[in-house]
């Protein structure tokens, strides 16, 4: 049976010349070779290493620190510094994570305990499932021509889990946050989807590979900048980034749907918007910034395109987090008005522009 499994794994494995000597030595050891082959199997490599779990971990450790540090610098503060002083406090997020890990998880008396505890855990489903459909060059999970709609549909499941958390918390702040989430969910989702449709109209396909291939000369952001602006604003609303941190709003309703969570459960739910931001950054890089197009690195082999995609998403996220320190917060009524009127109009203009480009 091992031989059958090995042949399946080896038949579609990732080829990285840089680590090939190490892989060759490990292949000589029984049982270890099965694990190595399993990790290097293309779908598993995609979901476990890059842009999967390892990528998410790196992004999470980085973006929380980076967001705090960048905002601090713009506001003339210093930001996290005391953990690992010489490196400027880079491992602050890791220290916070360890603290969450050892803190007591309290499920209070009024909560629906079953859902209260399981929603943070299963909320990884709508994060990891769309990742399967987002390819990274020569590393992909599931390859289909309907990848873009499937990924978007799965990503738009995340608010449902947030609503579930708020409902299970049975707390008035969580209730207010949940209702706000539900309101703005409709306000941003329609312009968001229209802006994505605008890009698919230009590329005339929903397959990520073809989309990236068509951007080899001009990135999509130059073809349809209006769709990009709509995508960017709705991305900020969707991931509850400032200035649109309406469902969370720690000043008003103390983290909204997540108010009752503590310990590692809070650590899980707090990272949910960041994971969503990562997924949407990957999609936006593929749609607007040429995806994994980049100078070829022969020594990295199959890893190079994935690395380019990851680096682009990384930079995109780092720049997006600057909006936190530029704009003041929006009220929910302002956001709803903006979402249903201006952004909606702008997205339709973008769609018309795309149609014009496609006809021409």
């Amino acid at each position, binding site marked *: 049976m091992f031989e059958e499994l090995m042949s399946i794994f080896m038949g579609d494995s990732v080829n990285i010349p840089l680590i090939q000597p190490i892989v060759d030595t490990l292949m000589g050891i029984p049982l270890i070779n099965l694990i190595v082959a399993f990790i290097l199997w293309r779908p598993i490599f995609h979901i476990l290493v890059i842009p999967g779990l390892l990528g998410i971990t790196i992004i999470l450790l980085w973006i929380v620190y980076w967001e705090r540090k*960048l905002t601090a*610098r*713009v506001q*003339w*503060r*210093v930001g996290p510094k005391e953990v690992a002083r010489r490196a400027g406090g880079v491992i602050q997020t890791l220290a916070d994570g360890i603290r969450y890990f050892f803190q007591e998880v309290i499920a209070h008396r009024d909560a629906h305990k079953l859902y209260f505890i399981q929603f943070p855990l299963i909320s990884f489903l709508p994060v990891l499932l769309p990742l399967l459909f987002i390819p990274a060059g020569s590393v992909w999970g599931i390859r289909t021509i309907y990848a873009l709609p499937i990924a978007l549909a799965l990503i738009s499941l995340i608010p449902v889990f947030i609503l579930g958390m708020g409902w299970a918390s049975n707390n008035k702040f969580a209730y207010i946050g949940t209702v706000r989430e539900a309101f703005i969910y409709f306000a941003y989702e329609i312009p968001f989807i229209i802006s994505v449709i605008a890009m698919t109209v230009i590329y005339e396909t929903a397959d990520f590979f073809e989309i990236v291939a068509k951007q080899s000369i001009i990135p999509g952001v130059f073809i349809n900048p209006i769709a990009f602006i709509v995508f960017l604003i709705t991305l900020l609303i969707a991931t509850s980034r400032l200035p649109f941190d309406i469902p969370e709003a720690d000043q008003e309703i103390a983290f909204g749907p997540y108010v009752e969570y503590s310990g590692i459960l809070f650590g899980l739910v707090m990272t949910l918007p960041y994971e969503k931001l990562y997924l949407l950054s990957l999609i936006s890089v593929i749609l607007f910034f040429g995806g994994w197009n980049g100078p070829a690195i022969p020594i990295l082999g199959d890893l190079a395109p994935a690395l380019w995609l990851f680096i682009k998403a990384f930079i995109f996220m780092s720049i997006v987090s*600057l909006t936190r*320190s*530029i*704009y003041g917060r929006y009220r929910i009524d302002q956001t709803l008005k903006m979402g249903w009127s201006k952004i909606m109009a702008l997205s339709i203009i973008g769609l018309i522009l795309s149609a014009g480009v496609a006809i021409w």
Partner: protein
Amino acid sequence: MVKIVKPPKVDITRTVIGHLKAIGEATKQAIAPDTITIHYPRERRKYPDNFRGLMIFSKDECISCFRCAHICPANAIQMFPDENGRYYPGVDYAKCILCHFCIDSCPTAALKPSKIHDVAFKDVESMFIKEMDGIPEIKREDKKLVEYDFEEDLKITKRKYVENLIVEVPKPPRPKMIAAVKSPENCIGCRLCFFACPVDAISSKAEELEIILDTDPKKCTGCGICVRICPTDVLILQPVREG
């Protein structure tokens, strides 16, 4: 009359310019922030020399004139005798308001100002320092000295320099004090001063019923032992005036 307030007109060009300005300023600050934070234990702000911090006392300079104890508005300074019988000030930092009147009043600069503002005491009792002498133990973590520059835009300059926290004040010439007879009619002839004087500067003789007490200004060192030991306040310490 009803005045209708119209919403301001939206000028797209100005809005876009405003957005771009905001983004540019934030980017500029993100790359090179004008932070004016002082990382306190590792850096210290440069304080002026007249900063009112902890008082430093040196026993050798003190002439036991009691002026610090008398002038203290918070009544924080008390005089305590040491084993030689001379009186030296002790400060209760629970009462002290750090007004530095005592330092201003000190004629010999035995009390000195310092820039030490970060002091910790274990309890209220230990705040009453009865024997203060020399410089207290200071743990310095600072490596840099930070100076604010208030001209034009607020800026800070950091220098790799450890500042001396003890302020050196110019030492005034020590006034020569001698014991003098203030009220000879009070003398009861106990001759305690005569025996106590270490340099035999006091002479006394009985003339009929009066006792004449005299001090030799050439021998007297102004130590004040006779002044303190006299039970009836006959002797005082007097500064010697020029000429």
